[in-house]
């Protein structure tokens, strides 16, 4: 049976393991014709993995998939498309330099080899008539807005005959108006008899669009309910619920001077949209200030602005009492700031160079490593030995290339390197992401130790446990804004869950 429309789809006991982590732990998931199901969860809950399995991008370790009560074997996206499953990824799968028409032609299997334009053009025009769509199909992809590109993805999938559409965080790239249009379109598709799986972390959208909601947490399905029988508070609780660990014994916070303050900061992302929208906060000596939030809410751009890697549009950054109104990467470099970047192997180290070369990546032209024109390799080697010893970096020697170290050891090394020279202000982005328990423990303890010794620390993490455990105060970032600044223990886990999902205040909760 191929693509006669999906009446029912069942995923049974889906299990998928990645090295060191169970991404999907025996998940059951069902959808029927005409349903819109929201798949809700924090980062790393396993939503995208589950859908990638359904779309044939990953192969499950265990489990079965049934379409219209028949067992199917989806080995690749091609199979999925043949069964009528289409997916709009968070990052669009379009070729920028080609036109809309060409991109669609590429996707359709019935496209003739020669002169495909005419055939596909007819199809597109018919489709536009039917759905009241309008996209300039002769335009090149790069000329379109993100909202329009997303439409192209959807048109592509529908023309390909999909009856089940998976959308991965579709609103994260859209303006509010575009999101509203998208929802209108989705409702129309449901009337046509399509079914939709909507991956999101935004609570409001769940209620706006879906008929049913499924909540995943740490690879497990923890909740499933018709939308009319549930409410935000319940969902928020299921999404983030966890045992609250007793707060670790931390020394009483000393009231230190203000080291970093950010005033009304606006930052644009690479696509030119404002993704940090008027953020205000300050970090003091003897304090860890956390920024929680689902990734993609502007944290990356905020950190890049503060560390001198990205221009900002408006606002002011004050570091060590000096005001900066304008981006100046050279100046930031000279400041006494440690920066533990996200994606450690992409930015934090040069994998192909030995440890000792990497130990001075951000300080190579400072005293005592640099004199005259020469780098003083004896000093540098001693320094790298000290980092390796002091921070328990497991490596055969300091001459080893960094790419041969494990993620945990690379991170310990980066952290060690950064805080051994510059420790007045430490900016750490997702410092324990992907690390095992002992390395995670080590790094969190180290951050707390640095705080006790007088560093001001700004910690960005999408791991809520980490924020609650380590920080003294923290903000919740949602859609470019800090929607709350609080202390661990002040808000219940349910309240935090609501804030992470973008529920700002009581009124919104009710509406």
């Amino acid at each position, binding site marked *: 049976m191929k693509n006669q429309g999906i009446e029912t789809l069942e995923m049974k006991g889906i299990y998928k393991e990645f090295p060191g982590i169970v991404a999907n732990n025996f998940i059951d998931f069902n959808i029927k014709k005409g349903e819109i199901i929201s798949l809700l969860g924090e980062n790393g809950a396993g939503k995208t993995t589950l859908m990638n399995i359904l779309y044939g991008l990953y192969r499950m370790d265990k489990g079965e998939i049934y379409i219209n009560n028949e067992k199917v074997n989806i080995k690749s996206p091609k199979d999925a498309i043949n069964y009528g499953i289409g997916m709009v990824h968070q990052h669009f799968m379009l070729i920028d330099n080609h036109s809309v028409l060409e991109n669609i032609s590429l996707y359709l299997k019935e496209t003739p080899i020669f002169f495909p334009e005419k055939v596909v053009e007819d199809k597109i025009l018919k489709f536009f008539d039917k759905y009241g769509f309008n996209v300039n199909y002769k335009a090149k992809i790069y000329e379109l807005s993100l909202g329009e590109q997303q439409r192209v993805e959807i048109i592509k999938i529908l023309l390909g005959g999909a009856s089940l559409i998976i959308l991965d965080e579709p609103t994260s790239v859209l303006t509010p108006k575009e999101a509203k249009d998208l929802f209108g379109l989705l409702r129309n598709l449901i009337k046509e008899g399509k079914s939709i799986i909507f991956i999101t972390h935004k609570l409001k959208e769940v209620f706006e669009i879906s008929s049913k909601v499924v909540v995943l947490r740490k690879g497990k399905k923890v909740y499933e309910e018709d939308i009319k029988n549930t409410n935000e508070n319940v969902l928020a609780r299921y999404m983030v619920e966890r045992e609250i660990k007793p707060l670790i014994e931390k020394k009483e916070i000393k009231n230190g001077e203000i080291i970093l303050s950010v005033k009304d900061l606006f930052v644009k992302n690479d696509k030119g949209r404002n993704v940090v929208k008027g953020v205000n906060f300050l970090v003091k000596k003897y304090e860890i200030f956390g920024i929680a939030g689902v990734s993609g809410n502007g944290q990356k751009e905020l950190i890049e602005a503060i560390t*001198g*890697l990205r221009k900002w549009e408006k606002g002011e950054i004050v570091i060590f009492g000096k005001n900066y109104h304008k981006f100046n*990467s*050279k100046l*930031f*470099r000279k400041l006494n700031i440690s*920066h533990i*970047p996200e994606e450690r192997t*992409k*930015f*934090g*180290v*040069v*994998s*192909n*160079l030995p440890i000792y*070369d990497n130990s001075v*990546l*951000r300080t*190579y*032209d400072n005293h005592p490593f*640099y004199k005259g*024109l*020469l*780098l003083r*390799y004896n000093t540098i080697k001693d320094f790298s030995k000290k980092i390796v010893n002091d921070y328990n970096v497991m490596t055969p020697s300091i001459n080893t290339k960094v*790419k*041969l170290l494990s993620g945990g050891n690379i991170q310990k090394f980066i952290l060690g390197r950064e805080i051994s020279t510059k420790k007045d202000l430490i900016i750490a982005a997702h410092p324990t992401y992907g690390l095992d328990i002992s390395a995670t423990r080590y790094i969190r303890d180290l951050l707390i130790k640095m705080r006790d010794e007088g560093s001001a620390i700004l910690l960005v993490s999408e791991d809520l446990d980490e924020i609650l455990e380590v920080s003294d105060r923290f903000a919740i970032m949602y859609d470019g804004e800090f929607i709350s600044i609080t202390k661990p223990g002040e808000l219940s886990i349910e309240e935090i869950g609501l804030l992470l999902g973008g529920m700002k205040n009581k009124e919104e909760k009710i509406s």
Partner: protein
Amino acid sequence: MITIEKRKKYSIKENLLIIIISIFLSLFISSLIFSLKGINPFFALYKIIFSSFGSLYGIKETVTKAIPLMLCGIGLSIAFKGKFWNIGAEGQLLTGAVLATWVGLFIGKNLPSIILIPLMFLIGFIGGGLIGLIPAFLKVRFNINEVIITLMLNYIIEQYVQYLVYGPWKGKTQYGFPYTDNLSQNALLPIIKGSRIHYPTLIIAILLSILIFFLIFRTKLGYEIRVIGENPLSAKYAGIDFMKVTLIMMFLSGGIAALAGVGEISGIHKHLTYPSQISSGYGYTAIIVAWLAQLNPLIVILTSLFFGGILVGGDVIQTSFGFPFATINIFNGLMLVFISISYFLIQYKITFKRIEK
């Protein structure tokens, strides 16, 4: 199914073995070409090797040809370390040749050797460096592909040299040949008696190879070049100034290649003539010289001697078997292909395994 994975460990032994195999394979395929022409490949190879390394005359010629290869190879090593694909050593060399002629023939004609020769090298170096700046600026500022710019500049400069020797600089004493007038005695480099080895250039080349080795592995600039080359994102994180480093790097790279051109004019030809006469593709062969040396300027000394020998051998098979000189380009081309493959094999492991469906 074939899977390709990054190697976790590198052994020097394996590394060497792969390089030796790639030389062997290029020799093997070149042999096939000789066989096709009915010549015993072993005899041909023997001829090549004997003519270049087997006699005193051969060795002298080999060293002579190794000088420009060495200089261009050192220059290219700097740029390649920064992953800047400078294919323009040929044009940079010719720039040096033009400027050496200009200084020697017109500007400093009456200066004593002791001033004139250093001046020729200096002006040549600066000129080659300036040519190198063009692709560097275009790449950093506008992200224009440096391969295309450097390659096209080669053609422009070659044509300019043609124009000069057929046009305004054509010598009155050269019986209508497309040569400039000969440089006067004070503009000529001393040579080792009984050979064509212009030893001052050779000394400069060897000193530079040591100097550039230290530059790459011991100085701040070298560090910045290596970081940019290995990982531009961490270079940005480290706050390295891409524009400044790339400009200096390419100035040096172009400048050093241009020194080779100065040497060829002042040490060998004594006048400027058409481009293929001045450089038998040294700037291109130097790409292989640099790669075979794994971008280590000290090893460039050895690899340039090796390829110098191959070029001499090429001359010999031309005269003794009537083979076109281009035969040697086949060998060089094969070398480059196999070296590129061997670099891939050094970094990655290919395994064949069956997977059950």
